[in-house]
C-alpha cells in the first residue's frame, strides 16, 4: 500500500447502537440537515455520503447506518471492512441503550478486527438531549464510561433539534482522518473465506498454508 498524504480522503464511518436511539435520524440530520419523525426502521444497513472540508482538506465521509437488531456477523464482513471510525450511539433517556454500549463496542472489535483495538477511534454520542426532563443516564456516567475505554470522545446531541450534530461529526471526521494519515494496515488484504493459520500473523510473507 502506498504511503504519504492522499489528495482526497475517504472515510468510512459506521454507526452502531440499539434500535430506536436515533442513528438514522442522526445520519440524516448530519447529511441532509433535517429531521423527520417518520423514518422507517432500518433493515440491514443504510448508506449516505457527505463531502466535508476538514482543515482545508476535502474529505468524503461514507456513513453506514445499521439496524439495532443486527448482531453476530449478520451484516457480513464487507460491511465492517475498512472502517476508519466507529460511532456508538445511545439514547440519554434509555438506560438499557447505554448498558448495551459495551456489547456494541465488543461486537465491532470482533467483526472489524482492527490490529490495534485499544487505539481504534470510537466516538460516543448520547442522543435525544432535547428530552432533558426524561434523562436516564447522566453525562457524568457516560463520561466515566468513555474514560474507561481509553478516552473515547463523548458528545451529547439531538438529531431532532440539530444540537451538536455538526460538531460531533466534525470531530468524528477529524479522528478518523488522524488515524487514516497513519495509514495503518488494520485490515490486511485477505480474501474473505481463507482461514488464517495461527502462525501466519507473525510471518512476513503470507499465502503459505501449512495445514
Amino acid at each position, binding site marked *: 500500500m502506498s504511503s504519504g498524504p492522499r489528495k482526497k480522503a475517504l472515510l468510512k464511518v459506521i454507526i452502531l447502537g440499539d434500535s430506536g436511539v436515533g442513528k438514522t435520524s442522526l445520519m440524516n440530520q448530519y447529511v441532509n440537515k433535517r429531521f423527520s*419523525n417518520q423514518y422507517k426502521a432500518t433493515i440491514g*444497513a443504510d448508506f449516505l455520503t457527505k463531502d466535508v472540508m476538514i482543515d482545508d482538506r476535502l474529505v*468524503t465521509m461514507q456513513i453506514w447506518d445499521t439496524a439495532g437488531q443486527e448482531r453476530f456477523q*449478520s451484516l457480513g464482513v464487507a460491511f465492517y471492512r475498512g472502517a476508519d471510525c466507529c460511532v456508538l450511539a445511545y439514547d440519554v433517556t434509555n438506560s438499557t441503550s447505554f448498558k448495551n454500549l459495551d456489547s456494541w463496542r465488543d461486537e465491532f472489535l470482533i467483526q472489524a478486527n482492527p490490529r490495534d483495538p485499544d487505539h481504534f477511534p470510537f466516538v460516543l454520542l448520547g442522543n435525544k438531549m432535547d428530552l432533558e426532563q426524561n434523562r436516564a443516564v447522566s453525562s457524568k456516567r457516560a463520561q466515566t464510561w468513555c474514560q474507561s475505554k481509553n478516552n473515547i470522545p463523548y458528545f451529547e446531541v439531538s438529531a431532532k433539534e440539530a444540537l451538536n450534530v455538526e460538531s460531533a461529526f466534525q470531530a468524528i471526521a477529524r479522528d478518523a482522518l488522524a488515524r487514516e494519515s497513519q495509514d495503518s494496515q488494520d485490515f490486511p488484504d485477505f480474501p474473505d473465506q481463507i*482461514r*488464517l493459520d495461527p502462525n501466519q500473523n507473525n510471518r512476513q510473507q503470507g499465502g503459505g498454508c501449512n495445514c
Partner: protein
Amino acid sequence: MITPTTSGILREYQRFLSCEIGVDELITFCRTGSFRTAATRSIAWRILLKCLPINSLEWVPVIEQSRREYATLRSRHVANPRDPLCVQDPQLNNPLSEHSKSPWSRYFADGELRDLILKDVARTFPEIELFQDAEVKSLMCSVLHVYAKDNPFIGYKQGMHEILAPLVFVLYNDQQLYQHALEDFQLRSLDRTALHILQVLHDSNYFEADAYVLFCEVMRELTPWYEDAGIVEPPEPHPFERLQDTMITSRLLKELNEIGQRLAEFDPPLYRHLTNLDIPAQLFGIRWLRLLFGREFPLPDLLFLWDIILSDRPISRIVECVFLAMLVYIRENLLASDYGGCLQFLMRYPPVVDVMAFAQLALHFRAPLRNSRPKDSQLTNYSNMTLQGTVHPNAGNQKRTVSQPPPQQRSQQANRGKQRRPYRQEEIPKALGIFEEQVAVLQQRLNERDIVTAVSAKRIEELVKNLERGSLEIGTIAAQLREVGQQLGSLTMDRRKETPEAKSPAQEERIKVANEPVRSGTPRIFGVNELRELNTNNQNFSHSKPPSQQVPRDRVLGIPRF
C-alpha cells in the same frame, strides 16, 4: 380495467366461486397484472399461500377453523390481564402478584417484546393513511406478538412488520370493496350460498386472524432470511482465527452469495464492476430480501410484484430473479458509478418507470426460453429521484469528485484507473429520453387531478338527472354524493399539505397514497402505468393541460405515488 365496474366485481367473485379458475390460470392472472385493480387479490393470495383450497365450497369450514385456531393462540400468548376471560382468582390476577401463573407477570415479561414491536409498527408506511389508524396498529402489534411467541426460535425481527403491512393492506382493501359492492346492490344476482361464502371471507371481525394466517404462510418462506446467523462454531475452532474468516453461517448471507454468483452468469461486466468495487450483494441486499423489495417499489407496484412472487413457490428462485432484474435494470447507472454512487443507487433504488417491463425481465431470468426479454428501451427509471420523490443523492453528481472505495479497494482501483465519467456523446439521446419521460410522468400526475375532477363532475351531473327523474332513491343519491364529496375532499386535503406554510419537515416527506380504499365505480387516484393506459384509451379525459406546461418545483419534490 381501471376500477372494478359493477359487473366487473361480480364477475371476479363468480370466477372464484364457480371454481372456473384453476391454479395455472391463477398464476397467469398474477403474472399479467390482472389483480392490479381487482377486488379479489386477497382471495388469490390465500389460495396461492394454501390458506384456502381452490374449491370455494370448502372455504367456510377452512377459514372458520383457522380463525378458531388463532383465537386459541392469541389467548395463550397475549395475556391481557384485564380481559374477563383471564384468570378469575384475585390472588393471581393482580398486578402485584409475583406468582408465575399470574397473567400480569407474563404481561410484564412481555413488555420488552411489545415495545420493540410497537416501535416498528409505529413507523410502518408513514405515507399511507391506513397504517396511522390506531386499530390497524394494534392489530399489527397483536399479530406480530402472537407470531413471535408462537415461534420462539425466531421471535420478532425488524422487517417482519413490513411483510405484514402489505397483507393487511390487501385484506382491508378487499373487505372494503366487498362491503361497498354489497351496499351498492351489485351482488344481487348471487345466490345465498355464494353470498354467505363472501360474507364469511370478508368478515372484518376476523381481520386480525386472517392477517395472522396469511402472515404465517409468507413467513414460512422467509424464515431462512430472518433467523439469527448461528453463532455456529467452525468445525475446528482456532484461537487465532478471525471470526470474519469463518464460513458464512446465516442462510441469508448464503443466499446473497448465491445471487452474486448468478449475476456472474447473467451479466458478467456488471458482476465484475461490483466485485472490483467490493460491493457484494450482502452489502445492500439484506433489506431487499427481508422485506421482499418493500422499500424499493411503491405499494401498488409492490403488490403486483408479490402477485408474481407468491405464485411461484417456493419463492426463493423467483426472488433471486427479481433481485437480478433489479441489478440489471439499473446496470447503466451502476456501471457509470463509483463505490459511493453504486451504493447510493442500491440503497435508494431509483423508481422503476414501467413495473410490467420490470416484471417481464424478472420472469425472463426465471425461464429465459418461455419468457422473452423486454426491450432495453422499456427498462427506464427515474435515476435522479428517490421513491419518496426527493432528489436522489446521486442526482447531478457527474461533477462530483467523490470517490474512492474504502482502503481495501483503493489499490485495486488505482490500477484500473476507473473514474466517474460524464455522459458520452452517444449516451446523451438516451439520457434525454429518460428525462423527457420523467417530465411526462410528472405531467401525468398533474393530470390525475383533472381526471378525478372531470369524473366527479360527470357523476354529479348524472345524479342530478336521476334526482330530476326520480329514478333513484334519495338515500342512494345521498350516499353517492357523499362519496364524490370525499373523493374531491381528499384532493383538497392533498393541496393543503402542499402549501409551503403548512409544511413541516415531516409532512414534506409524507406522500399521499390513496387514503381511501379503491371503491368500485368511483374515481380514484391512478398509478403511473394505469394513467398511461387511461391516456391512450380514454382520449377525452387526458391532457387537459398542454404537455409542455412547466412542472412547478414543489411538485417535483412531493410527487404522490398512487
